């Protein structure tokens, strides 16, 4: 039974791997594909914290941005190859996430979200106003730039195809980790916290420690994505990385697809990115911000009509049909006799 579930994803993966080989994909389309995969990756990373564990962070950009800056700086100033740099940046960001997470975990969930949001804003202010941070020149509001090149050992490629495979690999990795969460005991505890924190605490596990773990993992992956992005475009723009739009868009993608599921973020990201892209392509340039408006509306509509996201909605429909079948059976049974014993 379980083997059957693997067939479809494996086929999709093979198709994805072979796609650029079989079809000749132009430069701009390649960028689009890479961006889609990256958003799927980021949505899945957020899912670990926000979807499975219920830590509704509105400031995911904090980790993405930090990962980007750290990877870039380690590359430019310490000559550390980004393949290692990404991991180091991710680790450092993970630790950072725990440090800022610790005081906020004890709060009512809404204040946790607010704190992450405020912190995101703080990061933006810091990185756009200060040219150097801790003695390192990070570029201030102009952003952190370096020259692209052809240096495969340092993750700089002239063609886009290698980037495609790297981000595809990252996506597979984060999905595997998400899958592990849905199956393992630790993952069960994560999801228990999301469902009912009080009950989870009574299971005898340290809720605080679990939250820190979930946050670390999520921040780790988000940061790695940031590092990748930095090497992909050779530029880190603080107002974009630490901007509200990136963080909220990633969250919307995950939530619309289905926040507590494996494929939800992937499908959500694909959907939202496509819609965004179409809108910005075909809308007249005078309508500035139409894409944002539409994203906001999509979120509102989704929350109201498809609670839990697209995938759970479809699963719920199946369960509803099963419930009504049961009700019908019960009614048939009690319809005949009934009445009060006297």
């Amino acid at each position, binding site marked *: 039974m379980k083997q059957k579930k693997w067939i479809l994803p494996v086929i999709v993966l093979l198709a994805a791997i072979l796609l650029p080989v079989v079809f000749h994909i132009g430069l701009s389309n390649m960028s689009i594909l890479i961006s889609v995969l990256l958003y799927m990756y980021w949505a899945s990373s957020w899912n670990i914290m926000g979807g499975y564990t219920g830590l509704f962070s509105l400031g995911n950009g904090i980790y993405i941005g930090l990962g980007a800056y750290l990877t870039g700086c380690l590359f430019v100033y310490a000559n550390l190859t980004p393949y290692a740099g990404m991991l180091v940046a991710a680790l450092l960001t993970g630790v950072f996430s725990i440090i800022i997470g610790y005081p906020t975990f004890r709060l009512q969930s809404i204040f946790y979200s607010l704190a992450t949001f405020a912190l995101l804003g703080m990061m933006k202010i810091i990185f756009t106003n200060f040219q150097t941070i801790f003695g390192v020149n990070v570029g201030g509001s102009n952003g952190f730039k370096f020259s692209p090149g052809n240096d495969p050992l340092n993750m700089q490629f002239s063609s886009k195809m290698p980037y495609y495979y790297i981000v595809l690999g990252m996506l597979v990795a984060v999905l595997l980790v998400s899958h592990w969460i849905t199956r393992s005991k630790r993952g069960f505890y994560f999801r228990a916290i999301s469902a009912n924190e009080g009950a989870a605490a009574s299971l005898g596990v340290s809720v605080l420690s679990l939250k820190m773990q979930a946050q670390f993992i999520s921040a780790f992956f988000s940061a790695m994505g940031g590092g990748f992005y930095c090497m992909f475009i050779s530029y880190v723009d603080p107002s974009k990385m630490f901007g509200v739009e990136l963080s909220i868009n990633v969250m919307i993608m995950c939530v619309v697809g289905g926040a507590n599921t494996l494929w939800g973020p992937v499908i959500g990201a694909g959907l939202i990115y496509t819609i965004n892209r179409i809108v910005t392509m075909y809308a007249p340039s005078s309508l500035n911000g139409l894409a944002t*408006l539409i994203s906001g509306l*999509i979120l509102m509509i989704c929350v109201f009509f498809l609670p839990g996201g697209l995938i759970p909605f479809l699963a719920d429909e199946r369960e509803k049909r099963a419930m009504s079948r049961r009700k019908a059976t019960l009614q048939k049974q009690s319809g005949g006799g009934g009445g009060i014993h006297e």
Partner: protein
Amino acid sequence: MTVSILTQALIDGILIGGVYAVIGLGLSLAYGVMGVVNWAHGEVLMVSMYISYYLTKFAGFDPYLTALVNILVLGVVGFILQKYIFNRLINRGKAAWRDILLFTAGMSMALQALFNLLFGAEVKSVETRYSGMLELGNMLVSVPKLISFLLAALCCAGLYVFIQKSEMGRALRATSQDRITAQLMSINANLVYCVAFVISLGIVGLSGALLTPFYSVNPYVGVSFCFKAFIIVAMGGKGNIPGAMLSGVIIGVIEKLGGAMVGDNLAQIFIFVLFILILLVKPEGILEKRVRG
């Protein structure tokens, strides 16, 4: 840094603090009675400020009278939102607060983008006949700010009396303490929630009018007000009217004193630090109440 400048800032802070307080109260009420966190609270304020602005500038309204229009419009909007959307989300049960947070976050995004599209991003302000300063001793008090402060204080007082003494006020308190038992007492919880949210948005509508004489509007003006409103809820406690008043004034004073010392832009950092302090120092006040629910 002379004493008079500091005192001036203090007075300024108290006056604006009153308006912050009443804005925070709107959020606190909705959150206290039914756990609704309106992430778009600031954007609703922005909308009401635009309404007041256009009525004042192009229809010759007295800016304070626009409050009536605002309250009406936002009251109706609040009723519709609560009855057809939030009540449904709440009655779904599981983790409704997340759904409401997401919905209002989407609303916030959409409203900002919409008003940017409609009216552009430029800052808009209007000259009203409430300008100029009053001399109290050797202190200068801005007339519109004083009027707004008084109206805001009046609103808070009125709300306090309503909540404590009236039939509906009691019903609001009962429903917030125990929704199911309140319904066993014939209290229509859904209706009570509508009342609460109508009041919440109505307050915001009033605040928009209060701000128009001295505060300029743009599509993104709501963000900082919303942040301060959340701090007020955290500091004052949900549904706590005197607490909200005090918190609002404290925030206003910190902002203006900070502004006098390091300039208005950097003063925002003080607000942020205040927020962090509250999170760290008073977690019991805003810790998850497991009994609720």
